[in-house]
């Protein structure tokens, strides 16, 4: 026994010693793509439930939608499962291509009907963009149909134009699931949600092989994919929550793409040989929400003073870097129909005058709530410093996502820093969050609405928003959008856009064809890799 132990121990010691000898420079294999990211918020892979940004990249590759778009072709809507479609006065008719799910079942119009019904009936956040234009549990059955196996038809409501309906159908939440497979896994009327949270049933170029929460997502090529098997045999998404560690892994060649780096770490790759930075435009914003239901923020002069009291350029230069650029209009400056920025640069003198005019010459105290995450915490600190300059004493309260979002939903804050996304890459899509508030009453309890949460009552803007959403004439719609932006600024917004939001991605030059998507629906079937 003793002899065995000694031998065993020395054998094990030798094995360990050999193992820690310097490794050869290990690069990722040429047929596997490795993405370093943060999987912390990925709670569900059910396409009709998971809305988190990093979830979208997984859904984008395991499922197909009827249509798609990318930044490459000016955000134009292109075919995906639908080979073609016709728009008429009352709706859109889609003609599906011959495609099969990973299970081998053919993709039919009945699957599309099933998926969209499922989305609306499950009634979670994922359904918001279709629900807010009239596709509700009460109406959905009458609005969608499958005239035959390869034809899908959706009727338009009065609140939606074809363009905006197509963008809504291009979203990750409109992914088409394999109805036969999902129905097999329904339990307790949950529409198969419990099963689909951790499994996939799609027709996309990859299949989910393994998902270990907060560790790794393994996707394997779907050899049967209708557009041909992808070049990558495997895609590995590795949870690398610590930015500096992820940066080192990218530099060493252990990962090929990093999309959760802090601003300083992204900047170290500027001009570094062998890497490129893709600053993906989201169309969304970092916002300062002010509670207009509370004194003194109910006073437009005070809100304007705050708009003059923030050092946007300073924050952009020192904190946001590749993550954002200053902009106070809720339409990105290069979108068609965008107006010029108002003169809300940092002007403490002007801000103090406005405060005096409002009757607050001696200033006042406010709290500022923010999620304890970079870059929002640093942004909060900078805002605190510059508002102190104009006599407003801000105390910062940090919390986790659930805390802060719950406070936001309950109108329980003075100031709060949320972020938005654009539900479509157009002026209408980006402004929508900022000008929609059908009923500001407390009893309306419209906690899912961004403007309601700030108790900002905007009946005229809301009416114009509804009109624009149903306006089919492009020129007239753009004119309405310009007027809405002017009116938004004139009313001194309680939801103040501060910075356009970007998602920087650092990519190794070994990777070709990786194109960041505004909604993180980055498709990987065309990605290839080279040895060097």
């Amino acid at each position, binding site marked *: 026994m003793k002899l065995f132990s000694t031998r065993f121990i020395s054998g094990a010691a030798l094995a360990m010693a050999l193992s820690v000898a*310097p490794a050869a420079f290990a690069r990722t294999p040429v047929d596997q793509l490795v993405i370093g990211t943060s999987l*912390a918020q990925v709670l569900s892979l059910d396409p009709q439930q998971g809305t988190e940004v990093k979830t979208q990249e997984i859904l984008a590759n395991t499922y197909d939608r009827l249509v798609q778009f990318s930044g490459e072709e000016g955000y134009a809507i292109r075919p995906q499962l639908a080979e073609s479609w016709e728009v008429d006065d009352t709706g859109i008719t889609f003609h599906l291509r011959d495609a099969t799910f990973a299970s081998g079942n053919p993709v039919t119009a009945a699957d599309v009907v099933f998926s969209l019904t499922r989305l609306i009936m499950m009634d979670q956040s994922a359904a918001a963009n279709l629900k807010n234009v009239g596709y509700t549990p009460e109406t959905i059955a009458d609005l969608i149909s499958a005239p035959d196996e390869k034809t899908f038809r959706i009727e338009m409501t009065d609140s939606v134009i074809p363009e905006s309906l197509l963008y809504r159908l291009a979203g990750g939440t409109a992914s088409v699931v394999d109805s036969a497979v999902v129905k097999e896994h329904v339990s307790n009327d949950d529409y198969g949600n419990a099963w689909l949270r951790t499994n996939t049933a799609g027709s996309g170029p990859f299949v989910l092989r393994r998902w270990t929460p907060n560790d790794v997502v393994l996707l394997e090529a779907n050899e049967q994919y209708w557009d041909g098997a992808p070049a990558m045999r495997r895609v590995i998404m590795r949870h690398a929550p610590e930015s500096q560690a992820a940066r080192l892994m990218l530099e060493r060649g252990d990962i090929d793409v990093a999309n959760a780096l802090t601003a300083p770490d992204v900047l170290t790759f500027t001009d570094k040989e062998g890497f490129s930075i893709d600053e993906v435009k989201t169309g969304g914003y970092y916002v300062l929400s002010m509670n207009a239901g509370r004194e003194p923020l109910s006073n437009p002069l005070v809100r304007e003073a705050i708009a003059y009291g923030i050092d946007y350029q300073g924050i952009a230069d020192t904190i946001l870097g590749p993550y954002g650029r200053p902009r106070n209009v809720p339409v990105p400056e290069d979108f068609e129909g965008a107006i010029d920025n108002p003169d809300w640069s940092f002007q403490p003198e002007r801000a103090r005058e406005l405060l005096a005019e409002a009757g607050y010459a001696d200033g006042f105290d406010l709290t500022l709530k923010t999620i304890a995450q970079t870059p929002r915490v640093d942004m909060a600190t900078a805002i605190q410093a510059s508002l102190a300059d104009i006599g407003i004493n801000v105390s910062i309260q940090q919390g986790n996502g659930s805390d802060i979002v719950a406070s936001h939903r309950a109108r329980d804050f003075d100031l709060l820093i949320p972020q938005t996304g654009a539900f479509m890459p157009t002026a209408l899509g980006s402004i929508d969050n900022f000008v929609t508030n059908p009923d500001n009453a407390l009893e309306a309890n419209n*906690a899912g609405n961004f403007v309601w949460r700030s108790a900002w009552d905007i009946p005229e803007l809301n009416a114009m928003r509804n009109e624009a959403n149903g306006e089919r004439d492009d020129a007239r719609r753009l004119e309405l959008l310009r007027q809405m932006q002017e009116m938004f600024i004139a009313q001194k917004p309680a939801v103040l856009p501060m910075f356009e939001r970007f998602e920087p991605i650092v990519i190794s030059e070994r990777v070709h064809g990786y194109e960041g998507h505004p909604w993180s629906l980055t498709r990987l079937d065309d990605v290839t890799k080279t040895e060097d």
Partner: protein
Amino acid sequence: MTEFSLIELGKRLGQLVLSLFVLLVVTFVIGRVMPTDPVGAIVGELADPAALEAMRARLGLDLPLYQQFWIYLMGLLHGDLGNAILTGNPVMQDLRAAFPATLELATLAVILSTLIGVPLGMTAAFFRDTWIDRLARILSLVGHSIPVFWFGIVGLVIFYASLSWVGGPGRVDIYLEGLVEPRTGLLLIDSLWAGDWEVFRSAVHHIILPAAILAYSAMAYITRMTRSFTLEQLNQDYVVAARAKGASNWRILAGHILPNIAVQLVTILAISYGSLLEGAVVTEIVFSWPGIGQYMTNALMIGDMNAILATTLIIGAIFMMLNFLSDLAYLVLDPRTREVAS
């Protein structure tokens, strides 16, 4: 063991169960009164209040607190810790997957820290105020005062990024992920079991740095304590007698002092092991190590109570078990405690 110490043992076990129950009650109450609302995380930020309420009812969070606790307790007695919101899996299944990663890391760290810390502490005490003693003191002061987080990053920059001596974050090179069937969950053992030399080699490369960094902070404590235990012994008559008889330094340290401080050592090693299992949190984040530390951090971020309760219970139970075992070790290793007990 005498009858009396069996009774004593039973009493201790009873105390252990009671302590666990108190821990459970306290964690449960704190967790339920926390402002964090996991339901928002599930249904999403834009959901209607009605959808939120429906989900709350589905999870049983609308029931009175005592009823929720009763349901939880009954589940627990049947070995059911509920489902995690974070992953959708039963918490038990998640813990089975996450715990071995932490266990592997902490065990290697405690072995390393003991192998270095105990001899170093003893030598430092024996050669008090010489350069060895000063070196040991500096080493333990540094290990004690520098944050593990900083050590982790610096270690990665030097040994991973610059020298390429060790693997980077994660348990194994990324392209080797998922090749070995998890049987024990301990990757070093599983890869040897499967005979996959490449995965084993990669796993060793990846564990060595985080384990060394964890071990260093534990070693600081072990060295300091061992040094003071040894100092207490050096003036004892038996050491003076051994010296007078001409025993070698080695014989005095290993043959005389070590057995006498063994009991105290067992206690501090147990404490270190417990803290390593619990304190791997920061290391796990820096090194993307998928253990319970990282699991718990993420659960806390969204207020996933079932996951938080389960990890708290596990960590509490480990601490109490280690305490219990070190008390047992006293009885076994130190005859004096047995005599007093009987």
